[in-house]
């Protein structure tokens, strides 16, 4: 009788449904860190201000928003200091949108590497999400400095940490996974259809206005009471509960309900699985079509 031989690796035409090769990803974990390092280091090489550039963009965006949305359009901000309100939204939104835009081009940008050597393809989007986390941490630092400024220097503002801040690690993970999932769906599809890459750039911009970045959810619910479908778009956008949770955690103002929050968690997981599923289908052969 023949004993079936043991093979370390069998290369077949298609992956089975949820064959993720997570062990493989684990084996290449050093590469993951090196990619993160590469992204971070190459970002500020040959610049004078270095990592301080991470501050500049949210700082100036906040100033612009304060003048335009706060001053000119007079959109309410839940009674918070305007810059703090916007900075909270911008910091979280930036992380999510960077995750999407950068993971969505991950196949295209790295086609030359992917075409020459094998490593678990998942490493690349993961490294994007993690290196953006560093950027997020820096911007969060800016946010905390701003909070300290408004707390001690400009007295008389009403904001405070609340118990919801315990959810902070969860919403960071959630944003990362949501960004990763969406980005993977788009990146997998852009290997064949480049159109999506263009869609992402302004799609993300549009999506920002459907998220509570420059206005609070409470105002939406009041103002759009007669147009339930409009407030529904904003309310059921999975990023809205995340940003609202962030605001209520750090600033004590925001709209938080458990059903809505859990709904956004479920949506995040669904998108993540969809992303992994499509990515998995594409990763073996995308080199031929990109």
């Amino acid at each position, binding site marked *: 009788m023949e004993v079936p031989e043991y093979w*370390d690796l069998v290369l077949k*035409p298609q992956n089975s449904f949820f064959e993720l090769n997570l062990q493989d990803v684990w084996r290449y974990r050093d590469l993951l860190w090196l990619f993160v390092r590469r992204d971070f280091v190459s970002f500020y*090489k040959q610049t004078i201000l270095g990592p301080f550039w991470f501050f500049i963009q949210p700082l100036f965006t906040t100033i612009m928003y304060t003048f335009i949305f706060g001053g000119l359009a007079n959109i309410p901000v839940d009674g918070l200091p305007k810059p703090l309100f916007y900075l909270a939204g911008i910091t979280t939104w930036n992380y999510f949108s960077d995750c999407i835009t950068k993971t969505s081009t991950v196949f295209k940008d790295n086609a030359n590497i992917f075409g020459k050597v094998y490593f678990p393809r998942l490493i690349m989007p993961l490294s994007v999400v993690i290196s953006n986390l560093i950027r997020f941490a820096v911007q969060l630092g800016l946010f905390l400095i701003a909070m300290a400024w408004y707390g001690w220097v400009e007295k008389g503002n009403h904001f405070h940490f609340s118990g919801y801040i315990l959810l902070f690690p969860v919403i960071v993970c959630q944003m990362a996974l949501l960004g990763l999932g969406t980005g993977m769906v788009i990146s997998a599809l852009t290997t064949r259809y480049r159109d999506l890459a263009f869609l992402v750039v302004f799609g993300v911009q549009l999506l920002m206005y459907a998220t509570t970045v420059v206005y609070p959810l409470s105002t939406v619910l009041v103002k759009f009471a007669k147009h339930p479908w409009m407030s529904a778009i904003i309310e059921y956008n999975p990023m809205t509960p995340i940003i609202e949770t962030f605001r209520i955690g750090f600033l004590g103002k925001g709209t938080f309900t458990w059903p809505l929050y859990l709904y956004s968690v479920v949506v995040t997981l669904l998108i993540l699985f969809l992303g992994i599923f499509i990515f998995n289908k594409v990763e073996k052969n995308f080199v031929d079509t990109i």
Partner: protein
Amino acid sequence: MSVVIKVEQLSKAYQLGEIGTGTISRDLERWFAKIRGKEDPFLKVGEVNDRAARGDSDIVWSLRDINFDILQGESVGVIGRNGAGKSTLLKLLSRVTAPTTGQIKVKGRIASLLEVGTGFHPELTGKENVYLNGAILGMRKKEIDRKFDEIVDFSGVERYIETPVKRYSSGMYVRLAFAVAAYLESEILIVDEVLAVGDAEFQQKCLGKMKDVSTRQGRTVLFVSHNMSAVLNLCNKGVVLRNGLLDYCGNLREAVQLYQNSNMSRSNEWIADKAATLPQIRYAWLDLAEEQPNLTLKIKVKIGSASNNSPAFIAFDIKNGFGTTIMQAIPSITPFLECNGNEKEYEFQVDLVGLIPDSYYVSIWIGPHNSETYDWQKDILSFEVQQSPTAGRTFPHHYDNGFIVPNSKIIQGL
């Protein structure tokens, strides 16, 4: 010895033409066929991959039903003409892309080197890139730590190791990149013509390193190259691919010979495809005879003309595989080819000197005067030199050391 790579019924199809607006309808069609349980219409039984011939379908089989086994410790040379499927095979083996049908079974870790310096980032220093590139090729950080000094030493760019690689010369860049790959610790190493880089000294070093990997360390090596002397030097088994099909798998010398002969039959004969008004070369044929270092070429040429012209003389230019014309043979300087409206066959003999192993291409020129040309057909015939002119020389020749090996002998002191 156990089988470490088993290739079974391996095929790979590529889509020809552009991927554009047609893609979405084609994708839907394929998906529809799939849910009905029908055969994929995209993968209709196609023709063999002959890039010169026109096929009916818009897919092409780069590889078709390939089967072979590779034993542990073998070093295998994969040879074949451009487009024979060599690179596709390597891509499949190194998991860059997946097969269309069939499978490959592997025992042990595979490291592939389809290009040197994959993932090098210009802004990072040499050191940072060594780590990054090593990790891309599958090394753990600890492994690289342990070998870092050896890698730097092998590359010979120690002074620049803290400098961004964008400041490197291309030679230094390649040296560092190859050095990383040279210290991979995998059971199976796959190498695509990366030896065509760097200067001669470094190439020898790379070849030496690869030989060391295969013979002394007992690891399995797959090597793709057009450089037959490198293949002969490095490998002990040959796989010949032709138009995506497996032509031969086994003894290396036979494999190389088969490959060379298949090349010869293609180009030792040439026929003009249209008639010209000026006197022209209508047919040419070539045969390589004798042994090194006294090779001779026999060339038959048919000269024809439509009308009466003054007689011409003939010149043969011989180019090497690098594209350099290395010699010119003119049998007679007085015009002797009759161009009086008829066709006539001439036969020539060219005594060659000791030529280094390579492919050579012959161009034929005819004209009544050195400043007037009737016909000039470039690279229409070719021949291969397989043996070194120096008896017993097995280490490869290199262009940097010349194309011709003169006879030399010891006259005193032996």
